[in-house]
């Protein structure tokens, strides 16, 4: 049987233009990796947006990072300034991974 190890998966919906700030925050918090997925539309308190727009303003992406529970708080703390200023949705879920040394 494959042994699984508990980790945290943080999913961050954030505006494309703000992504560099999020990446910086993650790198500062020493996460070992992340992946970014495009989004095509969304709805929230500020109304609707769509990737059809000619400008990339308002377009969101989803960044996912799998990290150790120990790192979680550092990550959330370094994201705080971004969360205070820009549209961003952060959620954390429990996951299990196969290779404990990778994350």
């Amino acid at each position, binding site marked *: 049987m494959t042994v699984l190890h508990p980790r945290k998966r943080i999913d961050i919906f954030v*505006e494309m*233009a*703000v992504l560099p700030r999020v990446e910086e925050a993650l790198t500062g918090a020493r996460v070992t990796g992340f992946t970014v997925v495009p989004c095509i539309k969304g709805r929230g308190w*500020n*109304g*609707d*947006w*769509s*990737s*059809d*727009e*000619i*400008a*990339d*303003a*308002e377009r969101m992406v989803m960044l996912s990072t799998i990290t150790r529970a120990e790192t979680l708080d550092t990550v959330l703390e370094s994201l705080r300034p971004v969360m205070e*200023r*820009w*549209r961003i949705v952060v959620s954390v879920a429990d996951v299990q991974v196969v290779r404990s040394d990778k994350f």
Partner: protein
Amino acid sequence: MIEQILTLAGANLASPIVLFFALGVAAALARSDLTVPEAFAKGLTIYLMLAIGFKGGVAVAKNGITLDFLTVAAAGIVLGVLIPAIAHGVLTRTRLLDPLNAAAVAAHYGSVSIVTFVAGTTLLTSLGVAFDGYMIAVTAIMETPAIIVGLWLANASLKGAERTGFSKDLLHEVMLNGSVVLLMGAFLIGYVSGEPGMAAIGAFVDTPFKGVLCLFMLDMGLLAGRRLVTARLLTPGLVLFGLVMPLVSAVLALAMAMALALSPGTGTLLMILAASASYIAVPAAMRIALPQANPAIYVTLSLAVTFPFNLSLGLPLYYFAASNLLG
């Protein structure tokens, strides 16, 4: 004179460029599912900027760089500072918007719409009116000053912590904006390549240009129309602002054009740049530097009110005024 203006407006409205824009708006209002894939539309924008920049550079290479260029560029920068100041004053005095959103909108009107400029050059070309190639460089130059002015106006109404620092990062993002770089770069390449360059790639940058613009206008129409469908935040006062502000800016530019004794063609283009409002570069900058302002206001106003107005009625009007008062 009325007759002259009506003929001009009629010819402009019946051009395929305006008609395809109208088709896009109509399709969006009717909620058709017609869409132009985003990557394709962005590719077309790059083509349009590359082509217009290159052609401008080739034109300048033919005539040589004149002092005119520097004075018109300076005039453009002055417009890029004056217009946002006026727009901000109007919007806050009339209480149409809070100071923050007013600042964001002001930045858009002080900057320029490249597609409006391109449509203007197409109109002039079809009328056989000459204009100076350096105007494309002026376009690039006018993209950014208004952003700085807009952020400065916004800061004036923000408390310490909320203010936008004019960090190096931010200035970098604003100055090295993709469209500025591409327009200026293609302009320089056109200037260096000159007529032989035009002979080499004219069949690409010139021949299909108007047609590509039509296809692009279809997409612009779809986007403007969709914005209109969801435009909950556009009060009648704001719509009026979106129609009158370009006229105010155009009059300002006309006065400068008269002072500088520009040709009717070049003067028309300066008016167009003044009257047009950005909906690509400035929104992106505002989302980063002024996230508290609402894109549902500034993009919609710029894209769904001012752009259609300039395209349909503004362009012939500006040319009419310029051709009668200049040259």
